[in-house]
Every structure is written in structure tokens, then in C-alpha cells.
């Protein structure tokens, strides 16, 4: 595919696209209205026609892989189908064209959507309440930890400054904990690939604020000792946080609240099918148990005895706010439509089919790659290219890149960190058996290439618009924006 020039390299001076109405009020001189303020001399925005714009971004879109293009088995990211009807709902002017500060009487439907979405998320979590205010998973983690902090402070416990995190966790967990002013202590995994309960018991103590646990963990395994883990942490006076990135495996089967978790985040852009947009918008809704409910951010949506919804700011123990308004309403709305579409049986079916698909892939890849934990997994399976590396010098990254030549987006590589040469595959429940067969056949073919023509794999990809990027040069010759001539 031909490279696309930057939009700044297109068009010509004076060319215009969008037209606006003429000014219909008496015009005055801007320098008079803005007396004392310097007016702009130079503004180097593109000068292109509407068709220039349409073709440019359409061509760019052709350089991009997406769920709508094909299977996207990116582990931990739950790249499932994003239903089109949800997009239709989010574009209804009665939702998309609302100002957040309108009188409450004029936005009852929107408040009802927020109220019911939060109630359904709390139900799915098995917890008392939820908020959709955080804009991403990491934002939900941060808010959760703010709540944990306020909870301990409210009880006069100032010494609880340590957050325990398994070494298999996502990097966001320690980053969020540090961002929230906590010290991070790592907990190892045991031979089963699960949290080492004995090590946890030794680490938990009077300085423990919380444990952050992903369940199923990043190896795709259910933490079967979870009740014991929660008991240990609670006995030590700490709280237990569930990273809900892998919630797709649990919908309708089990609930974090029932396992003993005190607080969790959801990724609505993973589990609840809202499109990830090439890196956002997301929504990192959190759910909390009863003890933490008073600390939720403001405003809280409430339902009065007459059935009217309102926004409540009178929450003396609230941590404050983490969003300019009420969170990504239109993202929450898509999740609302998704939950209503599936219903209780449909949600449970999501988890079951996600587990079936991951195990199917695991069975088909057995013998081709090492599978460090080759037993029933949940929604994702972690394979390892250690054998390919040792025998043929082909690394997990090479296999990922080669998969592109088969027209498939690679899995997550080199994560979790505790598995060498990891390839983390999450097929999701919306992929058909044929799609999984295509993925597995491509990986089988690459496994053969690793021994027969390893250089083909090491040099991959060969068929994409660009080949591997020079990342070192990108840092050394930092170029993050176009500059006009003479600027």
C-alpha cells in the first residue's frame, strides 16, 4: 500500500472546506474587543478541500488493522466484536447532544442510564455501588486506590502505606499505586502460576493498605485460593482490590464481591464491548463494597422516592472527583445497551464461550509451542516461544511480526513478565471456530517456518505497509510533530 503524505503536505494556500454563516450581528474590530491582549499573527492549519480530508483519512484507515478487519487475539485486551447497534444508540441526539449542566428535569433519561448502568455493574461485581467516572482502566485503579487511602485515613490508620502486587500483574498496577503515594511490594507466583499464598501471608501486616489482584490472573488462570487470600488480607486489616481487566472470563459465573474483594475496576472497553478507538475513549468504571461507598467521587446519581433522578454532591467522605463532569457517558451508554442486549444468560454465555475458545486454541497449539501451564485455562492462554528461541533463534516478537504476513494481528508479547518469550492469546467469545482455525493454522505454519526458514520469520513482516520501525532512531531523532517552513 502506498504511503500517505501528511495532511500538512497536501492542499494549497487559500483552499477551504467547511463554510460557516456570515456574521449576522454588527461586526466590531477584534483588537478593540480584546484590547490589551495580543492577537494571533500566524496560524498554520491545513488548507484542504473536504474531499482531500475524506480521502486522506480513508486512506489512513486502510493502513490500520481492527476488529472489524479480522481476529485480534491481543491478550488482556478483550478485542471482541463492538456491536453496531450500540453506536446507533450513542448517536441519538437525545444523548449525544446534551450539556452536562442542563437542569436535571431536562436530562432524566440520561441520569436513568447512568443510574441503571451503575446498578447493573454493581450487581455484576457483587458489590454495593459503582461509578463510571474514571476514563480508563488505569484511571479506575487510581480512583480505587484513592478510596482505599481515604478509607484507612478515616479509621485513623496512617501507617498503611504498602500495596502488595503479584509479579505477574499489569504494569499499571504498580504505576497506579505509586501515583497514589503507596509503596509497592511484589508477591511471587507459585509453581501453579497462582499467587503464592504463603508469601502473601508473610508480607501482609500492619503496613498493608491493599492487595491488587487480577483474577483470572495474567496467565489466564483462576486464582482458586481467592477466598483464603482475601481472608489473610482482611485479617491483616488491608483491603483487596480486583483488577477487572479479565472480567470477561467471569461474567455470570462468579462475582468479585462474593470472592471477598472490596473494590474493583471494569474496563467497559473490554468486557462490555465498547470500541477502543485506537487507544480510547475507555471507561474504567469501579465498583465498591458497602464500607467504601461513602468515599465514591461526586456527584453520585440518586433516585428519589418519586422516581426522579438527581446528582448528589453532598457526600462529606467523598474522595473528590476524577473527571471534569460525570465520566464518559456515551461509553457507559454503549455498555448499558450491551448488557440489556445480552441479559443474564447472555452475559454468562460470554464467559463460557470465551473460556471455550481459549481452551480450543490451547489444545490446537499443544506440541507446536511450549505451554507453561497446560491445563484448563480461563479466557486466555499464554504460550511460550522458548523452544523456538533456543533451537532456531526465533523470538516471540518475530513470531508476532510473522503473524501479520498471514493477515492476523499478533497476540500480546513478553507479558506476563514471569513467562519467558510469552505470547498471550485472548481469542474472545465472538470469534467463530473457523476464525480460530485460521489463527491456529497460521501459528502452526509459523512454527514450521521457525525450523525450516527461520530468517523469513526473523525478517517479518514482509507484506505490511511498513516493516519494523527503527525505535531507537525515533528516540534519538525525536520528531513528534510537523513544522511549517520558516517556523
Amino acid at each position, binding site marked *: 500500500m502506498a504511503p500517505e503524505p501528511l*495532511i500538512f503536505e497536501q492542499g494549497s494556500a487559500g483552499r477551504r*472546506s467547511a*463554510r*460557516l*454563516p456570515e456574521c449576522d450581528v454588527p461586526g*466590531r474590530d*477584534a483588537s478593540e474587543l480584546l484590547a490589551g*491582549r495580543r492577537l*494571533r499573527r500566524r*496560524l*498554520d*492549519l491545513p488548507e*484542504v478541500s473536504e474531499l482531500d*480530508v475524506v480521502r486522506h*483519512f480513508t486512506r*489512513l*484507515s486502510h493502513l*490500520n488493522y481492527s476488529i472489524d478487519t479480522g481476529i485480534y487475539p491481543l491478550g488482556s*485486551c478483550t478485542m471482541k466484536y463492538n456491536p453496531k447497534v450500540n453506536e446507533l*444508540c450513542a448517536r441519538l441526539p*437525545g*444523548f*449525544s*447532544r*446534551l450539556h452536562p449542566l442542563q437542569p436535571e428535569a*431536562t436530562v432524566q433519561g*440520561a441520569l436513568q442510564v447512568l443510574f441503571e448502568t451503575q446498578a447493573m455493574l454493581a450487581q455484576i461485581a457483587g458489590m454495593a455501588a459503582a461509578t463510571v467516572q474514571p*476514563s480508563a482502566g488505569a484511571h479506575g485503579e487510581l480512583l480505587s486506590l484513592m478510596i482505599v487511602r481515604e478509607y484507612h485515613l478515616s479509621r485513623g490508620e496512617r501507617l498503611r502505606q504498602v500495596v502488595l502486587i503479584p509479579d505477574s500483574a499489569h*504494569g*499499571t498496577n504498580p504505576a497506579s499505586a505509586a501515583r497514589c503515594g503507596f509503596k*509497592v511490594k511484589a508477591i511471587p507466583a507459585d509453581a501453579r502460576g497462582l499467587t503464592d499464598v504463603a508469601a502473601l501471608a508473610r508480607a501482609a501486616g500492619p503496613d498493608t493498605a491493599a492487595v491488587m489482584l487480577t483474577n483470572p490472573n495474567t496467565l489466564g488462570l*483462576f486464582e482458586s485460593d481467592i477466598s483464603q487470600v482475601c481472608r489473610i488480607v482482611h485479617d491483616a486489616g488491608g483491603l483487596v482490590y480486583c483488577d477487572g481487566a479479565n472480567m470477561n472470563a*467471569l461474567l455470570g459465573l462468579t*462475582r468479585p464481591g462474593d470472592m471477598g474483594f472490596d473494590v474493583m475496576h471494569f474496563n467497559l472497553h473490554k468486557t462490555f464491548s465498547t470500541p*477502543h*478507538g485506537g*487507544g480510547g*475513549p475507555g*471507561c474504567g468504571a469501579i465498583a465498591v463494597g458497602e464500607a467504601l461507598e461513602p468515599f465514591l467521587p461526586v456527584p453520585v446519581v440518586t433516585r428519589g422516592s418519586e422516581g426522579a433522578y438527581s446528582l448528589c454532591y453532598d457526600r462529606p467522605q467523598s474522595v473528590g*472527583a*476524577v*473527571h*471534569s463532569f460525570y465520566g*464518559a*457517558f*456515551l461509553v457507559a451508554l454503549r455498555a448499558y445497551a450491551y448488557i440489556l*442486549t*445480552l441479559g443474564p444468560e*447472555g452475559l*454468562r454465555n460470554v464467559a463460557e464461550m470465551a473460556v*471455550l475458545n481459549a481452551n480450543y486454541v490451547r489444545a490446537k497449539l499443544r506440541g507446536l509451542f511450549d505451554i507453561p501451564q497446560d491445563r484448563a485455562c*480461563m479466557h486466555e492462554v499464554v504460550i511460550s516461544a522458548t523452544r523456538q528461541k533456543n533451537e532456531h533463534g526465533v523470538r516471540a516478537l518475530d513470531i508476532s*511480526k510473522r503473524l501479520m504476513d498471514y493477515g492476523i494481528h499478533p497476540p500480546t508479547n513478553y507479558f506476563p513478565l514471569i513467562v519467558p518469550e510469552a505470547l498471550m492469546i485472548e481469542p474472545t467469545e465472538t470469534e467463530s*471456530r473457523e476464525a480460530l482455525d485460521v489463527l491456529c493454522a497460521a501459528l502452526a505454519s509459523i512454527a514450521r517456518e521457525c525450523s525450516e526458514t527461520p530468517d523469513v520469520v526473523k525478517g517479518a*513482516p514482509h507484506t505490511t505497509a511498513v516493516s*519494523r*520501525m527503527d*525505535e531507537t532512531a525515533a*528516540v534519538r531523532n525525536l520528531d*513528534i510533530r510537523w513544522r511549517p517552513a520558516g517556523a
Partner: protein
Amino acid sequence: MSYTPHTAADIQAMLAVIGAGSVEQLIADIPSQVRLAGPLAVPPAMSEPELVRKLRELASTNLDVDSTLCFLGAGLYDHFTPAVVDALTSRGEFATAYTPYQPEMSQGVLQAIYEYQSLVGLLTDMPLANASMYDAATGLAEACLMSCEIAGRSVVAVSDAVHPRYRLVLETYLRTSDCTLVTVPSQDGLTEVEAVRVAAEAGAACLAFQSPNFFGVVEDSEALIEATKAAGLVSVVAVDPVSLGLLEPPGSFGADIVVGEGQGLGVPMGFGGPLLGFFACRLEHQRRFPGRIVGATVDREGRRGYTMTLRTREQDIRREKATSNICTNQALMALAATVHLCALGREGLRQVSDLCLQKSHYAADQLCLSAHCTPAFDAPFFKEFAIRCPAPPERINEALAAEGIIGGYALGRDYPALVDCMLVCVTETKTRADIDRLVDAIRQIVESF
């Protein structure tokens, strides 16, 4: 309704390959005592037509801004958005992609983000812009935390003319750090240069202000930034990008960090989200800034291409030593802003800016001339202005609602001294007739009190 494709026969065949008798067998690791006994208590499944009907009904209970006449701003703005914005951002290739971790298959999103960063850089006149923040509030909070790192101090000074919600988010973020917040009062709607002295005396790392500020007033950014620099403080400026069609950008005055809300650039108001925070800083801060950034480079064959860069600041590599915990940001909103700015172009943005300026001034003049209001402040403003009303703003708004008009934002809740003031926003979407209708309605309302 369901989105899972397997038939019963598929499931049996797949179980046979796995060597399991049932799906139940695959989830046996979940202990029975934590298994959910019954179905989740959520409503029963709906078909697509049932869902659409329900959502349309809910939507119809809201009063959208096209069915009324709305003069609210206060951080979120109704600006004209060309149809190409939604048409292009709706494309599945953009909307249903993940973060571009694999550049070979993500050049579309990567190049679009590079163009977005370029546009933010051009608008603000800053050398370095990141791939986006959640919104202006979190962008401002991250900027202030970053200032503390830069300056090695732990006090943040913020003008009280900064959006009250941004300040609440800032306060919430600061509570988790060792930093404390000093709020510097504004005078007559303006952040005075005196604020810099107050900030410096408090030992602040930075002074954060907004222009146009919450009252719509265009601050003297030049004087504030120069004074901040002279006092050895980091300058953090929140701007409305639409105003930068007319006003000299803070980067030209030497600002250290510029943030803002990009919603007005093609992002639907959507009852407050998702939004678009932008974040730009000077080059010397390139190892400290939060969030993701895309850089241009070359591939193995020497072809130009784009990739995420300066990654060693980030959480998946640095874990607890990362500069921020941000991964998912607002990529699709950044794309919307990029398409929007390209569709408007140089003249288009200037025109939007000028229309906002002209129409808001016409409205302010008419309200004072004919509707018994007085200007709350004597300071230049851009598209919003505070007026003092001869009757309580809340009561005026109630009466306006009966006329099918949503009035301005009553300032008393956030600024008790301005209890009789209303913040009125007039963008290019309002016609002279719309403005005259508002003025007439307010005149009649206050005359009837």
C-alpha cells in the same frame, strides 16, 4: 440476542478437540463456594428492535440542545461540527482498533495521532504534545504534579478563576501526593500578576491559570507567564483551543505546560463525556511528561513511518517508576479533533473564533442595554461572560425554561460573592434572532419580578 457464533455442534466438536466433556469442566477451578448460584439480577435479554425502542424512549425524555435554545458553556461547548468528522471517526478501522502497539499494522492511527500532536503544537505554539489526556481536568492535575517534579517543590498554586471542577480534580489528585494546594483569588474576574507573588511566597512549584478563564475572561497570559518565569515558577496554562484562532497562544509567551479541553473541536457534548484533554510542554521536559506520544521514524527499508516513542517513561516498562499510569487515552477523540481542524482549516478556525467573539459581545451588550443586566467584570472576554442579574439567576433560569430556553450557568454555587451572576455562553451556533430571543425573555422575566 447474542454475539457468540457457535452452534451446539460447534461446541461439541471443540470440546472434543480440547478433550473435555463440557464447558463446566473447563471452569472447575472456580471453587463452588464462590460460584454464582442463580442468574445475575439484570433485566432479561432484548432483541435489537426492542433495545432501539427502549433507548429511543429514554433519549426522548431528555431535552437535547437542538430542541431548545441553550446558553450553557462552563467548560463544555456547542460548536458546529462538520459531518465529515463523524463519518470518518465512525470507520471501524479506527474505532475498533486497540492502542497501536504493533506499528506495522497501525500506521493509520499512528499517523493520525502524529498529525493531532502537530495540530496541538501549532495551535498552542509548543514543541511537544502528547497523544491526549482523559480531559482538561486530569491534564491540569498531571501538569501540576509534573511541575512539582520539575521544580523540586511541593506546593501548587492555582488561580480561583480556573474551572471549579478542574480545581476539585486537582485537589483530589494532590491529596494522594505530598503536594499541597494554594488557591490564589482573582480580582474582578482576572488573575492579577500579584498572584505570582502570592504563589512564590507560598513556595509554589507552579502557578496554574486558565485563559479564557472560567468567567470567559481572557487573562493577560503574556504578563502572567513572564512574571511566573521571572519568579522561577513553572507556568501551567489551560486554554480553550477555539480561542486560539484569534489569540496569541501561550507557547509564544514561553509557557512551560499548556493543557486544555479539546471537546469543542468536533467532540459531541455527550452529557459530559468522553472528552479530550490535550497536553503540551517544552522540550526540556520530555522525560517527565505523562501519557503516550507518537514519533516519526523510518522502517528497515528507510521508509517514513510512525511509532509510539519515549516509551521508557511508561508503566508497562517502568512499572512503579513510570511518569504516569496512563495507557488508554482518548485516541478517537483526538482523531475527531484532527479531522475537525483539517475540515475547518486556517480560515475556518479564525472564522469560528471571530463569530464567537462577535456574537458573545453582541449578547452581552444587548443584555445590559435592554434586559437590565450589568457586566460582572470589566475585562476582555471571548465567548462567555458573567453578567449581574437584577433577579436571582436560578429564578431567571426557571422562567426561561418555561420559554424553551436553557439559560446560563448560575455562578453562586461556586463563587458565593457572585450569587447574583450568571455565566452566559454564545458560540457561532447562535443566530442574532436566538440572542434577541434570550434578551427579550430575560427582559420580560426581570420586569415581571
